[in-house]
């Protein structure tokens, strides 16, 4: 029989051994940050979901110009992305679909310098192909038997939808409030929803999977897209080069996708 203290030590040792793999996989992500697979430097870009197609295009341009950099794109609702960065997600660049969420990042002291506006976007009504519910105007969205899906008010497309409603003097009764504009689009594409309010650019990117219906009130409600390098980025220079790309050559890509020119 082993003395009790020794047994406890053995037990403690076993416990530590069992815990080791846990800590190992816990730190793996952090270690992976600076230089990822194949020794390429990773640049992490957090961007509003509405930028998905354009930023994927810009990723190709950027990686072609920087052979040793692997750009990692993370798309989501802008409010979600700010929360993730505030909680310590290691992002190098943040591109928001509105100024309100960018202001939150600045207020948290996580922006490197002044955010720069790089695009504007307006809302459009998205309906499934063939427009089964026969939507023609904003007023049609308030009809009782129309399944309308919006972004929740905290997400840029949701706050824009709220402003549209206020401007038009109507009140929407959505059947669901989604976390990002792509979630709204998905519910329209699948035909689960009769209509949704998304950006002009989303309808362009979706091709013939949805139809867009313009409404006059949209022109007055413009979303301004700011971009900034995140403070304490391990690759400040590379992050700035991404920002420069978006503000420079990337403008053409954004314009083709339907984004408006920056207002400021």
């Amino acid at each position: 029989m082993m003395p009790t203290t020794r047994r406890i030590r053995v037990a403690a040792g076993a416990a530590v051994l069992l815990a080791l793999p846990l800590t190992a996989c816990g730190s793996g992500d952090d270690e992976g940050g600076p230089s990822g697979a194949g020794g390429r430097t990773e640049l992490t870009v957090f961007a509003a979901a509405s930028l998905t197609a354009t930023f994927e295009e810009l990723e190709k341009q950027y990686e072609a110009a920087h052979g040793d950099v692997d750009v990692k794109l993370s798309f989501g609702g802008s409010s979600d992305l700010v929360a993730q960065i505030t909680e310590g997600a290691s992002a190098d660049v943040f591109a928001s679909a509105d100024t309100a969420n960018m202001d939150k990042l600045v207020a948290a002291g996580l922006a490197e310098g002044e955010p720069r506006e790089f695009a504007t976007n307006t809302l459009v009504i998205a309906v499934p192909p063939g427009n089964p519910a026969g939507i023609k105007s904003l007023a049609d969205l308030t009809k009782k038997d129309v399944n309308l899906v919006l972004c929740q008010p905290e997400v840029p497309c949701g706050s824009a939808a709220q402003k549209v409603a206020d401007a038009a003097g109507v009140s929407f009764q959505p059947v669901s409030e989604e976390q990002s504009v792509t979630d709204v689009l998905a519910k329209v594409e699948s035909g689960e929803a009769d209509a949704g309010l998304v950006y002009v650019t989303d309808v362009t990117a979706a091709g013939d999977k949805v139809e867009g219906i313009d409404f006059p009130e949209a022109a007055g409600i413009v979303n301004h897209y700011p971009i900034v390098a995140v403070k304490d980025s391990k690759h400040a220079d590379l992050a700035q080069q991404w920002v420069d790309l978006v503000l420079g050559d990337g403008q053409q890509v954004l314009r083709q996708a339907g984004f408006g020119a920056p207002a400021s």
Partner: protein
Amino acid sequence: MSRTRHVGLPRWLFGPALLAGVFVVLPVAAMTTRIAWGDFPALVTSEAARSALWLSLRTSAASTALCLLLGIPLATVLARSEARWLGVLRSLVLLPLVLPPVVGGIALLSAFGRQGLLGSELEALGIRIAFTSVAVVLAQTFVSLPFLVVSLEGALRTAGERYDVVAASLGARPTTVLRRVTLPLVLPGLASGAVLAFARSLGEFGATITFAGSLEGTTRTLPLLIYNLRVTDADAAVAMSLVLVVVAVLVIGLVRPRAAL
């Protein structure tokens, strides 16, 4: 019943066992350090919070009832019938346990969505499931059913068929045997299965947000509310998370000890 004799445990078990306990309890306990206690009462009694909690409790109760209705016959058939295809059925029933919740949501959409297999038929009958509380209940039932079936089937197999055989030999009809002998014998297992199903329904998130959407009072259950609050009001999200943990602990803690065999 006399107590079973105590068999000594190898002491080295206690280290890892303790570690496992800490691993589960620590993160949940750590959450309480983030709670803004001053605002706590206001946060958890807000309209959105009460509406989400109430919706969660109602839909979980409904899905548990549905689980009992469908799960008791299924578990009994799985435990007692000797048909060969049952092995396949058993594996399929367990599927929701291993499927990512979002996949569950997409599967439910394929069946009950407006463009889905049954959804278009239902739509023609004037029944709309998408974006309603019924969709929430279906999502919860889909993920919870295996918990009930596995618990109950296990209990039925452990209990064995001896008493059933005796009852039948004394002239009881199959339905009477089931009602008077089989089910009463496995009542604790049934209760613990129902509690597990309820608790799982309470925590259901992925299938719900995919299949049912998110709207206050209709489909925004407590987990969905927490997911929303997480980006807009972190304090409220932590407060509601604690509420969810407390409700889950109450449900499991109050019923489980008595139910455990």
